[in-house]
């Protein structure tokens, strides 16, 4: 047993990598954390999202929220569930704990209506993030931080027009997410060509690839594939290569791989909504509200996107995507 352990340790020491790996990550991550910059009481803020397990997008939101929490002397809690009623139960559990502030997503607004109301009655300030900009005010949230999905979709449509595309596929990876439908509707609105929706099973990457492949093989006229999440863009690129299609892949959201692929010219463009900023601003605004009754937006959503990211921008952003904050 100890011999095996020694062998493994030895191999690890002997085989050091000068590039990448944990050390490179640690070097890049120096900005995160830090000490509290204020001496307000240690409030507890909770974020409850509709994220699935292990979603990179929500990791970035969380790292933004944690950064703000560190600065603002906040204890930050996080819970998530893809199913509307379970997400609502998690919000209820946070209310039971008498947290000092709540951040929720309204991807399934009807399921969240009652608990948001309860939080308000319990005197807990609520900010909505990411999805649900149209319902936020109605439910009594202080403000909404995110991007307007329809506007983001329209931005993509315009960008496709500029690039002279004629026929696009919009790849939806989460069935039942209203925000995703809105994005594709936005693309349809501004794009002069034809848009088709393609539903794929987002939790099953090989399935995503084969579905896109099949779509591209069955219709050779498709010259643009739009994925709704960053992790699906490289998969779509692979699918296009496999299918022998010349279609350009463009995507919503950003991550390290997308930034790399943009630089390498494999992707056309990405539309970023800056998840880091959504997490950061939500916590920071709740702090401001607790401390000084401040609020941004004036009753309208505070927009963090859309920002169109092309090859040139990707170069400057690569550093940040690598450490997981963009």
């Amino acid at each position: 047993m100890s011999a095996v352990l020694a062998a493994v340790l030895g191999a690890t020491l002997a085989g050091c990598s000068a590039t990448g790996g944990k050390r490179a990550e640690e070097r890049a991550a120096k900005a995160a954390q830090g000490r509290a910059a204020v001496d307000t009481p240690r409030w507890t803020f909770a974020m409850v999202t509709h994220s699935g397990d292990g979603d990179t997008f929500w990791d970035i939101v969380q790292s933004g929220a944690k950064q703000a929490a560190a600065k603002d002397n906040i204890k930050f809690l996080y819970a998530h569930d893809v199913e509307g009623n379970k997400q609502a139960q998690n919000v209820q559990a946070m209310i039971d704990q008498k947290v000092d502030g709540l951040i929720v997503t309204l991807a399934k607004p009807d399921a969240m209506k009652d608990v948001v109301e309860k939080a308000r009655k319990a005197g807990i300030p609520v900010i909505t993030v990411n999805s649900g900009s149209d319902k936020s005010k109605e439910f009594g949230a202080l403000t909404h931080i995110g991007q307007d999905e329809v506007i983001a979709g329209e931005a993509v449509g315009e960008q496709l027009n500029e690039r002279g595309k004629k026929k696009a596929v919009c790849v939806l990876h989460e069935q039942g997410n209203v925000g995703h439908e809105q994005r594709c509707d936005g693309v349809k609105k501004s794009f002069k060509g034809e848009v088709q929706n393609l539903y794929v099973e987002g939790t099953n990457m090989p399935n995503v690839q084969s579905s896109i492949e099949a779509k591209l093989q069955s219709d050779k006229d498709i010259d643009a594939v739009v994925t709704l999440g960053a992790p699906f863009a490289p998969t779509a690129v692979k699918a296009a290569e496999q299918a022998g299609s010349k279609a350009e892949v463009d995507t919503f959201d950003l991550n390290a791989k997308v930034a790399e692929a943009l630089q390498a010219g494999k992707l056309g463009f990405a539309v970023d909504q800056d998840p880091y900023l959504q997490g950061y601003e939500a916590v920071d605004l709740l702090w401001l509200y607790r401390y000084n009754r401040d609020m941004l937006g004036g009753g309208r959503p505070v927009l963090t996107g859309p920002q169109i990211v092309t090859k040139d921008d990707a170069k400057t952003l690569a550093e940040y995507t690598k450490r997981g904050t963009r």
Partner: protein
Amino acid sequence: MSAPATAPVQDAPDERLVHRSYLRRLLGRPELGAVVGAAAVFVFFSFVADSFLQASSLSTVLYASSTIGIMAVPVALLMIGGEFDLSAGVMVTTSALVSSMFSYQMTANVWVGVGVSLLATLAVGFFNGFVFTRTKLPSFIITLATFLMLTGLNLGFTKLISGTVSTKTIGDMEGFESARAVFASHFTIGGVDVQVTILWWLGLVALATWVLLRTRVGNWIFAVGGGADAARAVGVPVRRTKIGLYMAVAFCAWISGQHLLMSYDVVQSGEGVGNELLYIIAAVIGGCLMTGGYGSAIGSAVGAFIFGMASKGIVYAQWNPDWFKFFLGAMLLLATLLNAWVRKRAEASK
């Protein structure tokens, strides 16, 4: 069955008539392992989560348990009867979709939709049972097929009829308020908000326990799960019992589905996938054997309660939710091991 030479001595009493002590009988109950496990999980979270013991938190935990528990009851009965139903999770969504879309599209009173949904859901349950008893294929395969078909139908029909992936709101339609009062209301007891699903759940557990332990149908369920051929030989209507069990699952799916619809007045067509496993987990933690013939309805309730405590306890304990599934799996393993051990001990001491 044994030769006369090995027959017991005449004056030893018949073993079926021996009076077993209360403790012995308690140890022989299928749900004992689960009760011990539930107590352990409860004590554990009472210590690690400050807000867990508040009445309001317990009410949230009970609500989470009841949403699983309502379905775990018939799933447990079905498992005692020796079969699985993998379509139970999406059937809940199907049921909610049917009543919502029927009411909306026909502009009918919500109760009409609720009634139509009951018929449609029972029909799905009947289909499962009928195909299974006719083909004699494993129920695993039959209900897996139903599961996939329902998932597709849910999304396909919803998109076709509503144009989006969720249904249109029926919150402003006639009959909605009374239907909500039945399926999704909540009331206050001693300052604590209690959801009506908890009553449905307890009622179903009581009903199922009575059926299992005090009626002829209950004996049939144990018999068909223990050995279908032997049961048929002594005159148990095996086919009817199994079809009935599938329809019981459908009936409870209808209750859960109506709850889902009435609490939020719209339904997401993609939901419910994966929940069927949670129901089976609750039944197994509660002492149901995968091979049938053994288990209890109360056990399924305790299993669902453990599930509710674990899923919400992690939030109250302020842990990173990434670990939840691991915790659930470990608990399932421990509970089944504990069950097996307790049962062995109980049988050895008989």
